[in-house]
């Protein structure tokens, strides 16, 4: 922290080990009293050279690499990548595969939005809501594990379709989960719309009005909460979205409260899409054979990620490896607006204003690796649960009597 000899102005560096978000970013905030008069955003600490790595790997290897662009919305990246390659190769995927892609995409949106809602609640000291939403998110992650085999980095997509089919039992489980979740989401919506503490804390915070949202090219819920009705599922329907009614949720508050309301309503819309898919998913194959060598050409592939428009540019040179891959993830677009959301606001609002664009941060798998002497042991679900029970016992809490239903996929 330093005075910059300019009256009462104070420069405050925050990060790159950010105190609230589990991802590195640096903010240089200039304060006049409690007011933020200037903000500089520094990102790039997580650049992993992934696009360069794509150029020396074949398309199938790249599929797994691309899925790891983001731990939260991995499916949207593998979908954008696959459909880009499929376009270059002239492949048309089976309808059933397109429906499965949509279902996983909407499950991903649900868990991403629930995760965000919890983080946002935590940022404003509303930890009860954080606990509630993360508890509900587990229901979605359990379904994702059942359908895909994984809670994150689902590995469901392949070039030419999907790798796993869904059966009737899975569809029933999704339907049951949707019914249970709907009540909770409606409760969160009611909270956001009527709870005075929430509206007092979020209303007018991190404002990015319509004109600025257009100017800085923000996307997804950040743009839609400022009155911009862009949604790639509607603008340029992909997978099976052309057959599925999708109603983009738009709000005009242009602040953190608006972003909260948009995301909660989008979850209800996701449940409607899931129900439509369960009812209308056609029978048939789930993939077509794809060539290893992809014809030369360029493609721009887009999907609507939970955080907004996701763009993949792919250039093929006719071999089995791409010549150039460029991923423009939605958070990259939304960072542009952060500076303007912070300026004019209070220092205390900085964490929630940043969190409200839902910047990506890592999501860890449930399995952990424990070093034990010279060897290493990978814990399975039961082992992890036992570890948790023992840890709490040591700290004076006995949770061994809590019953958790066994699932076949753990």
């Amino acid at each position, binding site marked *: 922290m330093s005075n910059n000899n300019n009256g009462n102005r104070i420069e405050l560096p925050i990060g790159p080990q950010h105190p609230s978000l589990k991802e590195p970013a640096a903010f240089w905030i200039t304060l006049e009293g409690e007011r933020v008069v200037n903000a500089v955003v520094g990102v*790039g600490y997580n650049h992993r*050279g992934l696009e*360069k790595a794509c150029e020396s790997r074949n398309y199938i290897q790249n599929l797994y690499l691309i899925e790891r662009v983001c731990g939260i919305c991995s499916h949207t990246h593998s979908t954008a990548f696959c459909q880009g390659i499929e376009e270059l190769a002239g492949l048309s995927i089976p309808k059933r595969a397109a429906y499965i892609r949509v279902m996983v995409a909407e499950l991903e949106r649900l868990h991403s939005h629930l995760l965000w809602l919890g983080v946002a609640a935590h940022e404003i000291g509303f930890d009860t809501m954080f606990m509630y939403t993360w508890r509900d998110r587990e229901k979605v992650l359990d379904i994702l594990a059942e359908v895909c085999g994984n809670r994150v980095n689902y590995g469901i997509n392949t070039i030419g379709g999907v790798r796993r089919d869904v059966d009737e039992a899975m569809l029933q489980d999704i339907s049951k989960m949707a019914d249970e979740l709907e009540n909770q989401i409606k409760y969160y919506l009611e909270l956001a719309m009527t709870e005075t503490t929430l509206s007092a804390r979020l209303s007018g915070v991190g404002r990015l009005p319509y004109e600025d949202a257009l*100017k800085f*090219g923000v996307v997804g819920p950040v743009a839609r909460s400022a009155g911009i009705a*862009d949604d790639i599922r509607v603008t340029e329907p992909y997978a099976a979205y052309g057959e599925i009614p999708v109603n983009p949720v738009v709000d005009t508050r242009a602040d953190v409260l608006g972003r909260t309301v948009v995301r909660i309503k989008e979850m209800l819309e996701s449940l409607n899409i899931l129900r439509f898919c369960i009812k209308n998913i056609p029978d048939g194959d789930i993939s077509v054979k794809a060539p290893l060598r992809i014809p030369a050409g360029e493609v*721009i592939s887009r999907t609507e990620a939970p955080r907004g428009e996701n*763009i993949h540019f792919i250039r093929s040179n006719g071999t089995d490896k791409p010549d150039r891959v460029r991923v423009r993830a939605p958070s990259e677009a939304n960072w542009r607006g952060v500076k303007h959301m912070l300026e004019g606001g209070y220092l205390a609002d900085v964490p929630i204003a940043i969190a409200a664009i839902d910047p990506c941060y890592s999501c860890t798998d449930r399995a952990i690796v424990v070093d034990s002497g010279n060897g290493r042991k990978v814990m399975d679900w039961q082992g992890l649960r036992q570890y948790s029970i023992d840890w709490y016992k040591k700290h004076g809490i006995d949770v061994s009597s809590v019953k958790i239903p066994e699932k076949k996929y753990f």
Partner: protein
Amino acid sequence: MQTENEIVENLCKKFGFLRDKVYVQRQKRIFTEFLAKEEFEQVLRYAHDELGFYRASHVVGTDEGDDLGFIYLLSDKNGIILALKEKAPKSDPVINSMTGKYPSLEQHERELVDLFGAVVKDLPEGPSYPLPDGWPKGSYPMRKDWDPRYFDKNTMTYNPPEDNGKKEGGNK
């Protein structure tokens, strides 16, 4: 609402040099060939001011052998993407910043500087992106001749052999 074909027609009518250099790639996609700097800037300004391409999504840098390529992705309210391409020689990789028309491009143009070694004139001041402080000068990792095998992350130095690894099979 202007269709893709109407936009292409409009562009060709306005700029004679675009004939045979702009085409509808598929529904919602319009591509141009690589254009000279002055031509590129004229088309970009017209697309912004007259054709309703209000948003620039990003810029894709490419290595085109002796040149660097810059593909600007602009979109209109109907979701049509115009991929406008510009080229500059590696020996003099100077382009003008387009942040005057599209402020959203600032970070993407910084990436062209760090990763491709482009010189972007009139780019607003700000922190570099995305390479870390102390990255070796003159080392541009997204160029095709940059090989990660020769980068030492402990000393932050890039030490390619004189033949740039060609005898070992080139860029792996």
